[in-house]
């Protein structure tokens, strides 16, 4: 289990990353390495080069900017989890982050790295989708902001172009009159979610996002429905996700979790409307 040969490039600035991504074929950004390194070791991924971005100071910031928390590409998950304002500014993110891997992997893994890998079970893409957040990508050609719904395009694939890097992700801050809740079930503590649910509700709106079932996180607005209609709507939602059987769960089991955990998550979100 040794990686194939690759070049290691250490970027000192965002410009370095842009140049490397545009010039080096088959390069891959290395941030916390919690997904990429095992992939290299197992030779699942064989990039020609990895571009280490963790020394770029400008990428290491967490800041509140225009109604969103902007998290830079070098911010580790543990750092965001320890950000004092987190629970107040975005309770959904605060509730979901402890479910990302283990304390050890959060100490290394980055928030943007999780978005970049777009694992269908990952919590961070799910929260971005539920909150209608966005991803800031940039290249020599310029910068653009992509809405989460457009960014996650499928299994481990995103709208990021080959020459683009993720500079930051934006989580919208808590809105008055809204309640947020997160629930997840995995076989063991820290495992990939069999199903993860994130709910954003207000008096007039119910938005439920589901991870771990489809090939990407999927959100649906279930607004304006009474309890019975809500149950029906969640069942429709569950069936629409094209759940599959795997070693750990059947499709039918995943749909059950969506139905039962989904309703519970919405109830919990309603109970904490501020």
């Amino acid at each position, binding site marked *: 289990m040794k990686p194939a040969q690759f070049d290691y490039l250490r970027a000192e600035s965002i410009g370095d990353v842009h140049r490397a991504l545009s010039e080096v074929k088959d390069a891959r950004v290395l941030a916390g390495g919690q997904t990429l390194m095992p992939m290299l070791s197992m030779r699942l991924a064989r990039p020609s080069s990895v571009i280490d971005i963790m020394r770029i100071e400008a990428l290491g910031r967490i800041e509140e900017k225009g109604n969103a928390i902007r998290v830079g590409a070098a911010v580790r998950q543990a750092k965001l989890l320890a950000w004092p304002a987190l629970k107040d500014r975005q309770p959904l993110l605060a509730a979901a982050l402890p479910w990302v891997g283990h304390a050890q992997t959060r100490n290394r893994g980055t928030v943007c790295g999780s978005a970049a890998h777009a*694992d269908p079970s990952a919590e961070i893409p799910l929260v971005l989708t539920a909150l209608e957040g966005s991803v800031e990508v940039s290249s020599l050609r310029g910068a653009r902001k992509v809405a989460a719904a457009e960014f996650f395009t499928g299994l481990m694939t995103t709208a990021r172009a080959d020459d683009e890097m993720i500079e930051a992700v934006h989580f919208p801050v808590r809105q008055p009159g809204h309640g947020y809740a997160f629930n997840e079930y995995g076989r063991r503590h820290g495992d990939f979610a069999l199903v993860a649910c994130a709910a954003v509700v207000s008096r007039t709106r119910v938005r439920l996002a589901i991870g771990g079932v489809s090939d990407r996180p999927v959100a649906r607005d279930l607004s304006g429905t009474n309890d019975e209609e809500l149950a029906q709507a969640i069942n429709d939602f569950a069936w629409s996700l094209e759940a599959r059987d795997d070693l750990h769960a059947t499709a039918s089991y995943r749909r059950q979790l969506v139905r039962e955990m989904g309703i519970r998550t919405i109830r919990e979100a309603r109970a904490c409307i501020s």
Partner: protein
Amino acid sequence: MTCRKSRRVIREAAHLSEIPEDSKRWLGRSVARVEDAGLLTGQGRFLDDLGVRPGTLHAAILRSPHAHARITKIDTAAAKALPGVSAVITAEDVTKLSNSLVVGVKAPIMCWPIAVEKVRYVGEPVAVVVARDRYLAEDALDLIEVEYEPLPVNVDALAALSPESPVLHDGLKGNIASDRKFRYGDPERAFAEAAHKITVETNYPRNSCTPMETLGLVIEYNASEDAFDVLSNFQGPFSILAVIARALRVPGNRVRLRTPGDSGGSFGTKQAVFPYIVLMGIAARVAGKPVKWIEDRLEHLTASVSATNRSTTLSAAVDPDGRILGLAWDQVEDVGAHIRAPEPATLYRMHANLCGAYDIRNLAVRNRVVLTNKTPTGLNRGFGGPQVYYPLERLMQRIAVELKLDPVEVVRRNLIAADKFPYRTASGGLLDSGDYPAAVTMAVEEGGLAELRARQRAVREAGGLYGIGFAAVVEPSVSNMGYITTVLTPEERRKAGPKNGAQATATVAINPVGGVSVHVASVPQGQGHRTVLAQVVAEALSIEMSEVQVVTDLDTAKDAWSIASGNYASRFAAAVAGAANLAAANLKARLARSAAAQLNATIDDIEFAGGKVFSKRNPDNALAFSRLAATSHWSPGVVPDEAQAIRETVFWTPPQLTPPTEADEINSSLCYGFIFDYCGVEIDRETGAVRIDKYVTAHDCGRILHPGMVNGQITGGFAQAVGAALYEEYAYAPDGSFLAGTFADYLVPTMMEIPAPVILHMETPSPFTPLGTKGVGEGNCMSTPVCIGNAVADALGVETIDLPLTPAKLTALMQKPEPAPPTHAEAQTSAAPGQQKGRSLFGEGSAEIALPPQQVWEMLLDADVLASIIPGAHSVEKVGAHGFRADVSLGVGPVKGRYRANVELADLEPPSAVTLRGGASGALGFASGEGRIQLTATDSGTRLDYRYGAEIGGKVASIGGRLLDAAARVVIRQFFEALARRAGGPRSGNWFTRLFRRRP
């Protein structure tokens, strides 16, 4: 999960108080482990930490992606040509330079450490590269071209019984390697006369206790002496050295084995390094240099070794009171693709105690050993115990349910009475000691069963699912080296000669400048043998523990050992520590003679205490122990011959371990501990998750030398058993793909999932071992899986239940009807659970194309068109009228691999339908499948409909199971959408054009 504080109650048995107060100074106390300071400060000396000789080469192994296939071609030229590669070894070298590994049953089959002509399981070695470093060796693996012709696969133990199942070994007619029937007492009569016949059917799954450190070795071949020098974390049994030497075609004394000072766990699995010792021995011989190989985790999980999976039908003849009059076992043991030594030992280790803790005199047994396309099995903690106690204790629960009796009462009514020990079992076991009814009473009272039952009532009244399970287990330890021969018929045994006993050895030596050295051949894997041996010897000689230095690395060229040596069958405390005690006692007797001479006293007047040796009558007439001990070194002339004391090596074998009798009676182990467990579990209705509310485990493992280590063994075994019960499975798809190649899919529970058990003890010393001790390391691997299984069965009220108890499985058992899909739902592409064949994927889709069908048809038959639509194609060449060969890069996101693909067009119905059939193989695995394309004329051109089925195997199936199906769908969909696009259909969104970046 709530964590409960573990409670330990040591019962001072009457026997303990008979041991003189003075000698309790070290034994029976939880002294600090001498191993820990080094381990905790990074000074452990594990195999991979030890330096190697300059020039040592590194090996990597090419392994089969197929479960069953004929090897039609191996081309190693490109790999050999890679700079830095010294040699590539294949079956040709192995069969030329070695013999097949000895097989433990009388059957005309071979067992090579590399695939010869055929591969028989996923992960079977196919070639070995030795190179300057491991990176290069792995690079070279990618350059070896192997062509396989897949064969039908057989992965189901019960299906393997059928003569129609695909045959693995041509020497056999089917896949049954052994079929033996045994009869003890009068089982037919017991069943005929009993009021009830109660039967359970169980399928015990495959799992393994996975060590942190994987297998590894460094091996050198000395051509001038035709001898091999091996450094390996092999754990024994050393009978395997005979297998290695015979395979390498040298006498036993020309395979010198050394083991490192530390080992990062084994739980039996490191026995499985032996085929690699042979394989790498040949590699070192061919390369002419020392070779080092360290197994990686993917190799370990996929292809090292596992416990057997076993399908069992067990019936009991039961009287109306719940007393069992007879048992009938029908066991089908799946040993995987080869019968690798010492298999089929897993099936026979429990033969003496097939009636468990119960007084049952009538017993019928049928044991069949089958071969399937899975990794060969071998030693694993609990060895044969979980496979026997799962059905036996499930049966006890079923008897209670069917006869409406209290399960504890059913256990009690059948237990062997305390006054019957030593107790001869129906099948020949000699249970050494115990008081089972007293142990059950202690567990029930001190563990708080009444409170647990009250809690169950309360949870059930509140609508919850709560169950209580029980398990009573006899835990064997110190294996009889002859038990494996029970698989042979008495005639075959007569021919082979009797095998029996269990030689344990220990050496105690006195240093000329003070201090005592101890050496044993127990090959510890982290348990703390050095600490306990220091306790034993310090106690025997009445000296400080710090004066005893214990060495446990082993060198078979220099140290005392026997075929029974090694770390297995829980033999340390009973056999090895006992042998050390005997060696120390022998030395002490000689020292006493010497002291008597020097102090002018009689031998029976000599006393050892507090580091001094003195006359009891006149304690001032004394010598320092160190001074006395040095006498034989410095002034042997003053010591009588019979009192010379420098070094004492003891070999000890218990007389109770006799060979199997003509009637197939066998005492398979020397000691038998007793365990009574119960637990309460609650099942979450929403998720189906099992929460262990409370677990009580009561042990009688004879005399306890180190309570802390005993509890450590119990807790560790319990943790692994919780894994077996709820999480872990070496799962195979019906096509033989291995599905649990990483710790993301082989779910070993962590401290978050494992509650601390309540541990209770009583001590009934063994009359057969020098220290009264018995083994304790494996018991919970035997008792806990079924105890949890019984609790879950109780909670759900189900009759049949197999491990692992996954939430999806339990949710299905709750039989909640699923709400129907909405009528407008998109078609479900996933097959219904249970109907899926292997890793098969099914899917369908359609595309609109702005060309008439005839033109679309012509494009389909055009190699250039296919070149542009096969995802990631580098080149396409036409083969025959309707075939194509292509070199393609496929993948999703960052995961990419290069494959050779073959596509063939069949069932042509121009211009409306065609079948595309093909396969691809590469370093990450292989895929095969077919798709049917239908072309229908429409107003705007053509509608192209496709349906496909595909199968995927190899490395990607082992490590990417969670994402593989979805990834394959992406690739397949891309193919058909590219076809539509190429045919002029509407261009889809840009996502799939980005999925695969073409290489120039």
